[in-house]
Protein backbone atom coordinates (compact mmCIF):
# COMPACT_ATOMS: atom_id res chain seq x y z
CA UNK A 1 0.00 0.00 0.00
CA UNK A 2 1.17 3.56 -0.67
CA UNK A 3 2.63 5.47 2.24
CA UNK A 4 1.30 8.97 2.88
CA UNK A 5 4.01 11.05 4.51
CA UNK A 6 3.66 14.32 6.30
CA UNK A 7 3.57 17.23 3.88
CA UNK A 8 1.13 15.19 1.83
CA UNK A 9 3.35 12.92 -0.22
CA UNK A 10 1.86 9.68 -1.51
CA UNK A 11 4.72 7.35 -2.40
CA UNK A 12 5.09 3.75 -3.50
CA UNK A 13 7.90 1.59 -4.84
CA UNK A 14 8.10 -1.77 -6.55
CA UNK A 15 10.87 -3.92 -7.98
CA UNK A 16 10.44 -6.89 -10.33
CA UNK A 17 12.99 -9.36 -11.65
CA UNK A 18 11.51 -9.05 -15.16
CA UNK A 19 10.95 -11.81 -17.69
CA UNK A 20 14.46 -12.66 -18.86
CA UNK A 21 16.66 -12.44 -15.79
CA UNK A 22 16.84 -14.97 -12.97
CA UNK A 23 18.16 -12.57 -10.34
CA UNK A 24 16.98 -9.11 -9.35
CA UNK A 25 20.00 -6.82 -9.16
CA UNK A 26 17.95 -3.69 -8.41
CA UNK A 27 17.29 -2.36 -4.93
CA UNK A 28 15.24 0.58 -3.75
CA UNK A 29 14.44 2.29 -0.50
CA UNK A 30 11.75 4.69 0.67
CA UNK A 31 12.44 5.97 4.16
CA UNK A 32 11.68 8.84 6.49
CA UNK A 33 14.54 10.73 8.10
CA UNK A 34 13.31 12.32 11.26
CA UNK A 35 15.04 14.12 14.07
CA UNK A 36 12.74 15.14 16.85
CA UNK A 37 12.39 15.67 20.53
CA UNK A 38 9.13 14.11 21.61
CA UNK A 39 7.81 15.30 24.95
CA UNK A 40 6.73 12.44 27.17
CA UNK A 41 6.29 14.14 30.52
CA UNK A 42 7.30 17.43 32.12
CA UNK A 43 6.30 19.89 34.81
CA UNK A 44 7.36 22.87 32.68
CA UNK A 45 4.69 25.55 32.62
CA UNK A 46 5.34 26.27 28.96
CA UNK A 47 6.13 23.32 26.69
CA UNK A 48 5.78 25.20 23.40
CA UNK A 49 9.50 24.75 22.77
CA UNK A 50 8.74 21.11 22.00
CA UNK A 51 6.29 22.07 19.27
CA UNK A 52 9.10 23.40 17.10
CA UNK A 53 11.13 20.24 17.67
CA UNK A 54 8.43 17.92 16.45
CA UNK A 55 7.60 16.46 13.09
CA UNK A 56 10.24 17.97 10.78
CA UNK A 57 11.19 15.11 8.52
CA UNK A 58 12.71 14.37 5.17
CA UNK A 59 11.86 11.55 2.80
CA UNK A 60 14.69 9.50 1.35
CA UNK A 61 14.02 7.78 -1.96
CA UNK A 62 16.72 5.77 -3.70
CA UNK A 63 17.03 3.40 -6.64
CA UNK A 64 20.16 1.33 -7.32
CA UNK A 65 20.69 -0.93 -10.32
CA UNK A 66 23.63 -3.30 -9.91
CA UNK A 67 25.77 -4.32 -12.84
CA UNK A 68 28.02 -7.31 -13.47
CA UNK A 69 31.01 -8.54 -11.59
CA UNK A 70 31.89 -11.84 -9.96
CA UNK A 71 29.95 -11.09 -6.81
CA UNK A 72 26.93 -9.93 -8.79
CA UNK A 73 25.32 -6.57 -9.32
CA UNK A 74 22.76 -7.35 -6.65
CA UNK A 75 25.51 -7.35 -4.03
CA UNK A 76 26.75 -3.96 -5.22
CA UNK A 77 23.32 -2.33 -5.24
CA UNK A 78 22.41 -3.82 -1.86
CA UNK A 79 25.72 -2.77 -0.33
CA UNK A 80 25.34 0.74 -1.73
CA UNK A 81 21.81 1.30 -0.46
CA UNK A 82 22.59 -0.18 2.96
CA UNK A 83 25.77 1.86 3.32
CA UNK A 84 23.98 5.03 2.26
CA UNK A 85 21.25 4.61 4.86
CA UNK A 86 23.82 3.74 7.53
CA UNK A 87 25.86 6.84 6.73
CA UNK A 88 22.89 9.18 6.76
CA UNK A 89 21.67 7.67 10.00
CA UNK A 90 24.92 8.55 11.75
CA UNK A 91 25.58 11.96 10.20
CA UNK A 92 22.28 13.73 9.65
CA UNK A 93 21.56 16.05 12.51
CA UNK A 94 18.80 18.47 11.76
CA UNK A 95 16.53 19.60 8.94
CA UNK A 96 15.02 22.60 10.72
CA UNK A 97 15.36 26.09 9.32
CA UNK A 98 18.03 25.42 6.72
CA UNK A 99 19.84 28.67 6.05
CA UNK A 100 22.27 28.85 3.15
CA UNK A 101 25.20 27.41 5.12
CA UNK A 102 23.12 24.65 6.67
CA UNK A 103 21.70 23.79 3.26
CA UNK A 104 25.17 23.45 1.77
CA UNK A 105 26.19 21.29 4.72
CA UNK A 106 23.08 19.18 4.19
CA UNK A 107 23.93 18.72 0.51
CA UNK A 108 27.53 17.84 1.33
CA UNK A 109 26.33 15.14 3.70
CA UNK A 110 24.10 13.66 1.02
CA UNK A 111 27.05 13.61 -1.38
CA UNK A 112 29.32 12.20 1.32
CA UNK A 113 26.77 9.44 1.85
CA UNK A 114 27.11 8.48 -1.81
CA UNK A 115 30.90 8.57 -1.56
CA UNK A 116 30.73 6.40 1.58
CA UNK A 117 28.53 3.91 -0.24
CA UNK A 118 30.95 3.90 -3.18
CA UNK A 119 33.86 3.24 -0.85
CA UNK A 120 32.04 0.42 0.87
CA UNK A 121 31.39 -1.32 -2.45
CA UNK A 122 35.05 -0.79 -3.39
CA UNK A 123 36.26 -2.11 -0.02
CA UNK A 124 34.11 -5.22 -0.32
CA UNK A 125 34.78 -6.07 -3.95
CA UNK A 126 37.38 -3.71 -5.37
CA UNK A 127 39.99 -6.48 -5.52
CA UNK A 128 37.77 -8.88 -7.44
CA UNK A 129 39.04 -9.54 -10.94
CA UNK A 130 35.66 -8.28 -12.15
CA UNK A 131 34.33 -5.96 -9.46
CA UNK A 132 30.60 -5.24 -9.44
CA UNK A 133 29.19 -1.74 -9.65
CA UNK A 134 25.86 -0.03 -9.27
CA UNK A 135 23.94 3.04 -10.25
CA UNK A 136 22.44 5.14 -7.48
CA UNK A 137 19.82 7.82 -7.82
CA UNK A 138 18.86 9.38 -4.52
CA UNK A 139 16.31 12.07 -3.80
CA UNK A 140 15.94 13.58 -0.37
CA UNK A 141 12.70 15.46 -0.13
CA UNK A 142 12.38 18.21 2.40
CA UNK A 143 9.12 19.67 1.23
CA UNK A 144 8.93 21.43 -1.13
CA UNK A 145 12.60 21.05 -2.03
CA UNK A 146 14.04 17.85 -3.45
CA UNK A 147 17.80 17.29 -3.39
CA UNK A 148 19.04 14.99 -6.15
CA UNK A 149 22.30 13.05 -6.15
CA UNK A 150 22.75 10.88 -9.20
CA UNK A 151 25.30 8.36 -10.44
CA UNK A 152 24.79 6.11 -13.46
CA UNK A 153 21.67 5.72 -15.56
CA UNK A 154 18.78 5.15 -13.16
CA UNK A 155 16.57 8.10 -13.91
CA UNK A 156 14.54 10.64 -12.01
CA UNK A 157 11.96 12.82 -13.71
CA UNK A 158 8.81 14.63 -12.72
CA UNK A 159 5.54 15.69 -14.22
CA UNK A 160 4.70 19.38 -13.78
CA UNK A 161 1.68 20.94 -15.46
CA UNK A 162 1.51 18.01 -17.87
CA UNK A 163 5.15 18.34 -18.86
CA UNK A 164 7.61 15.52 -18.07
CA UNK A 165 10.96 16.98 -17.05
CA UNK A 166 14.20 15.06 -16.55
CA UNK A 167 16.02 15.58 -13.25
CA UNK A 168 18.97 13.40 -14.26
CA UNK A 169 21.11 12.73 -17.31
CA UNK A 170 22.38 9.23 -18.00
CA UNK A 171 26.08 8.88 -17.25
CA UNK A 172 26.71 6.57 -20.20
CA UNK A 173 29.37 6.54 -22.89
CA UNK A 174 26.58 7.07 -25.40
CA UNK A 175 25.59 10.38 -23.78
CA UNK A 176 29.25 11.38 -23.59
CA UNK A 177 29.67 10.69 -27.32
CA UNK A 178 26.61 12.82 -28.09
CA UNK A 179 28.01 15.64 -25.94
CA UNK A 180 31.33 15.37 -27.73
CA UNK A 181 29.56 15.64 -31.08
CA UNK A 182 30.88 12.21 -32.09
CA UNK A 183 27.41 10.63 -32.36
CA UNK A 184 23.86 11.71 -32.92
CA UNK A 185 21.29 10.79 -30.31
CA UNK A 186 19.88 8.19 -32.71
CA UNK A 187 23.30 6.63 -33.26
CA UNK A 188 23.96 6.57 -29.53
CA UNK A 189 20.59 4.96 -28.81
CA UNK A 190 21.40 2.14 -31.26
CA UNK A 191 24.92 1.68 -29.90
CA UNK A 192 25.96 -0.55 -27.02
CA UNK A 193 27.64 2.57 -25.64
CA UNK A 194 24.24 3.72 -24.41
CA UNK A 195 24.39 0.75 -22.01
CA UNK A 196 27.96 1.43 -20.89
CA UNK A 197 28.34 3.57 -17.75
CA UNK A 198 31.24 5.96 -17.43
CA UNK A 199 30.43 6.57 -13.79
CA UNK A 200 29.10 4.13 -11.19
CA UNK A 201 29.46 3.25 -7.50
CA UNK A 202 32.15 0.61 -7.12
CA UNK A 203 33.65 1.44 -10.50
CA UNK A 204 36.91 3.23 -11.22
CA UNK A 205 35.11 6.52 -11.78
CA UNK A 206 32.25 7.76 -9.64
CA UNK A 207 31.13 11.27 -10.56
CA UNK A 208 27.96 12.25 -8.73
CA UNK A 209 25.88 15.01 -10.21
CA UNK A 210 23.99 17.15 -7.72
CA UNK A 211 20.93 19.29 -8.11
CA UNK A 212 17.69 20.36 -6.56
CA UNK A 213 14.19 21.34 -7.52
CA UNK A 214 11.21 22.82 -5.70
CA UNK A 215 8.05 20.81 -6.18
CA UNK A 216 4.51 22.15 -6.26
CA UNK A 217 1.30 20.46 -5.25
CA UNK A 218 0.17 18.24 -8.11
CA UNK A 219 3.67 17.34 -9.27
CA UNK A 220 4.46 13.65 -9.64
CA UNK A 221 8.00 12.32 -9.23
CA UNK A 222 9.21 9.13 -10.92
CA UNK A 223 12.45 7.30 -10.19
CA UNK A 224 13.30 4.12 -12.08
CA UNK A 225 15.95 1.71 -13.22
CA UNK A 226 16.55 1.37 -16.96
CA UNK A 227 14.40 -1.77 -16.97
CA UNK A 228 11.47 0.65 -17.24
CA UNK A 229 12.77 3.06 -19.86
CA UNK A 230 13.95 0.26 -22.18
CA UNK A 231 10.31 -0.63 -22.74
CA UNK A 232 8.17 2.35 -21.77
CA UNK A 233 8.63 5.67 -23.55
CA UNK A 234 8.20 9.15 -22.11
CA UNK A 235 4.80 9.63 -23.73
CA UNK A 236 3.40 6.60 -21.96
CA UNK A 237 5.10 7.57 -18.69
CA UNK A 238 3.47 11.02 -18.91
CA UNK A 239 0.12 9.42 -19.60
CA UNK A 240 0.35 7.19 -16.52
CA UNK A 241 1.61 9.96 -14.22
CA UNK A 242 -1.25 12.20 -15.40
CA UNK A 243 -3.92 9.79 -14.20
CA UNK A 244 -5.94 10.55 -11.04
CA UNK A 245 -4.48 7.45 -9.40
CA UNK A 246 -2.58 6.63 -6.24
CA UNK A 247 1.19 6.27 -6.37
CA UNK A 248 0.69 2.53 -5.95
CA UNK A 249 -1.56 2.28 -9.01
CA UNK A 250 0.85 4.33 -11.12
CA UNK A 251 3.84 2.26 -10.01
CA UNK A 252 2.18 -1.07 -10.66
CA UNK A 253 0.92 0.07 -14.06
CA UNK A 254 4.40 1.19 -15.16
CA UNK A 255 6.04 -2.03 -13.97
CA UNK A 256 3.36 -4.04 -15.77
CA UNK A 257 3.94 -2.00 -18.94
CA UNK A 258 7.66 -2.81 -18.77
CA UNK A 259 6.93 -6.51 -18.34
CA UNK A 260 4.44 -6.55 -21.20
CA UNK A 261 6.96 -4.67 -23.32
CA UNK A 262 9.40 -7.55 -22.95
CA UNK A 263 10.70 -7.32 -19.39
CA UNK A 264 14.26 -7.74 -20.66
CA UNK A 265 15.79 -6.36 -17.46
CA UNK A 266 14.98 -5.98 -13.79
CA UNK A 267 12.57 -3.11 -13.38
CA UNK A 268 12.25 -0.84 -10.37
CA UNK A 269 9.89 2.10 -10.04
CA UNK A 270 9.18 4.64 -7.31
CA UNK A 271 6.35 7.14 -7.76
CA UNK A 272 5.75 10.02 -5.37
CA UNK A 273 2.67 12.25 -5.71
CA UNK A 274 3.00 15.70 -4.19
CA UNK A 275 -0.42 16.25 -2.74
CA UNK A 276 0.70 19.37 -0.89
Amino acid sequence: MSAIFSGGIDVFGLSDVGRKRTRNEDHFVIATLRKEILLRQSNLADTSVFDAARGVEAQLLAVADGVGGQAGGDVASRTAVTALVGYLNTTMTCFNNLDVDAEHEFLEKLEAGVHAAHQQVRDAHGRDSRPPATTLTMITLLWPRAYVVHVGDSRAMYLHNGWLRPLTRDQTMGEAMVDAGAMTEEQAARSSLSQTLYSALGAQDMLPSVGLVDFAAGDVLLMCSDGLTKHVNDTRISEVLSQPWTAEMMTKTLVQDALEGGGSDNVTVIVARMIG
Partner: protein
Amino acid sequence: MIQKKVCMVGVFGTGKTSLVQQYVHTKFTDKYHSTVGVKIDRKVVNVDGTDITLVLWDLAGRDPQQDVGSSYLKGAHGVIYVGDGTRRETVSELDDLLRVATAAAGPVPSVTAINKIDLTEQWALTPEDYQALVKRGGLFRTSAKTGEGVEAMFLQLARFLTVPKAGA
Protein backbone atom coordinates in the same frame (compact mmCIF):
# COMPACT_ATOMS: atom_id res chain seq x y z
CA MET B 1 36.65 26.85 4.40
CA ILE B 2 34.57 29.86 3.44
CA GLN B 3 31.69 28.90 1.14
CA LYS B 4 29.84 31.35 -1.08
CA LYS B 5 26.60 30.64 -2.89
CA VAL B 6 26.70 32.05 -6.40
CA CYS B 7 23.62 31.92 -8.64
CA MET B 8 23.78 31.85 -12.44
CA VAL B 9 20.81 33.82 -13.79
CA GLY B 10 19.63 34.50 -17.33
CA VAL B 11 17.24 33.67 -20.11
CA PHE B 12 17.22 30.05 -21.35
CA GLY B 13 19.96 29.07 -23.79
CA THR B 14 22.39 31.86 -22.92
CA GLY B 15 25.09 29.40 -21.82
CA LYS B 16 24.88 29.44 -18.02
CA THR B 17 25.46 25.70 -17.73
CA SER B 18 28.21 25.81 -20.35
CA LEU B 19 30.03 28.58 -18.46
CA VAL B 20 29.98 26.48 -15.28
CA GLN B 21 31.06 23.36 -17.17
CA GLN B 22 33.94 25.26 -18.76
CA TYR B 23 35.01 26.81 -15.45
CA VAL B 24 34.69 23.73 -13.23
CA HIS B 25 35.35 20.84 -15.62
CA THR B 26 37.09 22.54 -18.59
CA LYS B 27 34.46 20.97 -20.83
CA PHE B 28 32.20 22.30 -23.55
CA THR B 29 29.51 20.70 -25.65
CA ASP B 30 27.45 22.18 -28.47
CA LYS B 31 24.58 19.91 -27.44
CA TYR B 32 21.93 21.93 -25.62
CA HIS B 33 20.34 20.47 -22.50
CA SER B 34 17.77 22.59 -20.75
CA THR B 35 18.42 22.81 -17.01
CA VAL B 36 15.59 21.69 -14.76
CA GLY B 37 15.55 23.20 -11.28
CA VAL B 38 19.12 23.85 -10.20
CA LYS B 39 22.36 22.05 -10.96
CA ILE B 40 25.06 22.47 -8.36
CA ASP B 41 28.83 22.45 -8.79
CA ARG B 42 31.68 23.62 -6.60
CA LYS B 43 35.04 25.16 -7.28
CA VAL B 44 37.73 26.25 -4.87
CA VAL B 45 39.32 29.53 -5.85
CA ASN B 46 42.23 31.29 -4.23
CA VAL B 47 41.82 35.01 -3.71
CA ASP B 48 44.89 36.78 -2.41
CA GLY B 49 46.02 33.74 -0.46
CA THR B 50 42.62 32.77 0.87
CA ASP B 51 40.79 29.71 -0.44
CA ILE B 52 37.06 30.06 -0.84
CA THR B 53 34.60 27.55 -2.24
CA LEU B 54 32.21 28.89 -4.82
CA VAL B 55 29.02 26.83 -4.67
CA LEU B 56 27.61 27.46 -8.12
CA TRP B 57 23.84 27.27 -8.41
CA ASP B 58 23.05 26.97 -12.11
CA LEU B 59 19.39 28.00 -12.27
CA ALA B 60 17.00 26.99 -15.02
CA GLY B 61 16.75 29.89 -17.44
CA ARG B 62 13.78 32.18 -17.79
CA ASP B 63 11.49 31.07 -20.60
CA PRO B 64 7.89 31.80 -21.62
CA GLN B 65 6.66 28.98 -19.37
CA GLN B 66 8.62 29.79 -16.22
CA ASP B 67 10.36 32.67 -14.55
CA VAL B 68 13.62 32.39 -12.66
CA GLY B 69 12.92 30.64 -9.37
CA SER B 70 13.21 33.31 -6.69
CA SER B 71 13.17 30.62 -3.98
CA TYR B 72 16.50 29.39 -5.33
CA LEU B 73 18.04 32.85 -5.11
CA LYS B 74 17.44 33.31 -1.39
CA GLY B 75 20.68 33.40 0.57
CA ALA B 76 22.86 33.96 -2.51
CA HIS B 77 26.11 35.74 -1.76
CA GLY B 78 26.65 36.69 -5.39
CA VAL B 79 24.95 36.56 -8.77
CA ILE B 80 26.25 36.08 -12.31
CA TYR B 81 23.90 37.49 -14.94
CA VAL B 82 24.32 35.86 -18.33
CA GLY B 83 23.19 37.22 -21.69
CA ASP B 84 23.79 35.85 -25.18
CA GLY B 85 25.43 38.42 -27.45
CA THR B 86 23.79 36.86 -30.49
CA ARG B 87 20.27 37.26 -29.04
CA ARG B 88 19.66 40.89 -28.16
CA GLU B 89 16.46 40.12 -26.25
CA THR B 90 18.40 38.02 -23.70
CA VAL B 91 20.48 41.09 -22.87
CA SER B 92 17.44 43.36 -22.73
CA GLU B 93 16.01 41.17 -19.96
CA LEU B 94 19.03 41.51 -17.71
CA ASP B 95 17.67 44.63 -16.00
CA ASP B 96 14.49 42.83 -15.07
CA LEU B 97 16.44 39.78 -13.90
CA LEU B 98 18.51 42.11 -11.71
CA ARG B 99 15.27 43.32 -10.15
CA VAL B 100 14.06 39.76 -9.51
CA ALA B 101 17.37 38.62 -8.03
CA THR B 102 17.75 41.72 -5.87
CA ALA B 103 14.25 41.24 -4.48
CA ALA B 104 15.12 37.67 -3.48
CA ALA B 105 18.76 37.94 -2.42
CA GLY B 106 19.27 41.61 -1.67
CA PRO B 107 21.88 43.88 -3.26
CA VAL B 108 24.62 41.27 -3.40
CA PRO B 109 27.78 41.56 -5.53
CA SER B 110 27.37 40.56 -9.15
CA VAL B 111 29.06 40.39 -12.53
CA THR B 112 27.54 40.20 -15.99
CA ALA B 113 28.66 37.86 -18.75
CA ILE B 114 27.82 38.54 -22.36
CA ASN B 115 28.45 35.09 -23.68
CA LYS B 116 29.21 33.54 -27.09
CA ILE B 117 31.85 36.00 -28.23
CA ASP B 118 33.18 33.19 -30.42
CA LEU B 119 30.14 33.91 -32.62
CA THR B 120 31.04 37.52 -33.37
CA GLU B 121 29.68 37.29 -36.92
CA GLN B 122 26.24 36.76 -35.39
CA TRP B 123 26.66 39.47 -32.77
CA ALA B 124 23.41 41.40 -32.35
CA LEU B 125 24.31 44.07 -29.80
CA THR B 126 24.57 47.70 -30.79
CA PRO B 127 27.23 50.06 -29.37
CA GLU B 128 24.43 51.66 -27.32
CA ASP B 129 23.52 48.28 -25.81
CA TYR B 130 27.11 47.76 -24.93
CA GLN B 131 27.46 51.17 -23.30
CA ALA B 132 24.42 50.47 -21.17
CA LEU B 133 25.97 47.18 -20.05
CA VAL B 134 29.25 48.84 -19.21
CA LYS B 135 27.36 51.18 -16.86
CA ARG B 136 26.24 48.14 -14.85
CA GLY B 137 29.87 47.41 -13.96
CA GLY B 138 31.55 44.02 -13.70
CA LEU B 139 31.01 43.32 -17.38
CA PHE B 140 32.76 40.42 -19.10
CA ARG B 141 32.65 39.17 -22.67
CA THR B 142 32.89 35.40 -22.47
CA SER B 143 32.96 32.30 -24.56
CA ALA B 144 32.04 29.07 -22.81
CA LYS B 145 33.25 27.34 -25.96
CA THR B 146 36.82 28.69 -26.04
CA GLY B 147 37.06 29.60 -22.37
CA GLU B 148 37.83 33.25 -23.14
CA GLY B 149 36.93 35.52 -20.25
CA VAL B 150 35.45 32.71 -18.16
CA GLU B 151 38.10 32.29 -15.48
CA ALA B 152 38.50 36.06 -15.16
CA MET B 153 34.78 36.54 -14.66
CA PHE B 154 34.45 33.99 -11.85
CA LEU B 155 37.62 35.25 -10.22
CA GLN B 156 36.33 38.83 -10.28
CA LEU B 157 33.14 37.80 -8.54
CA ALA B 158 35.16 35.83 -5.99
CA ARG B 159 37.15 39.01 -5.31
CA PHE B 160 33.93 40.99 -4.83
CA LEU B 161 32.75 38.32 -2.38
CA THR B 162 35.86 38.57 -0.24
CA VAL B 163 35.87 42.33 0.13
CA PRO B 164 35.10 43.11 3.79
CA LYS B 165 31.82 44.93 4.27
CA ALA B 166 32.12 48.56 5.21
CA GLY B 167 32.29 48.93 8.97
CA ALA B 168 33.00 45.24 9.53
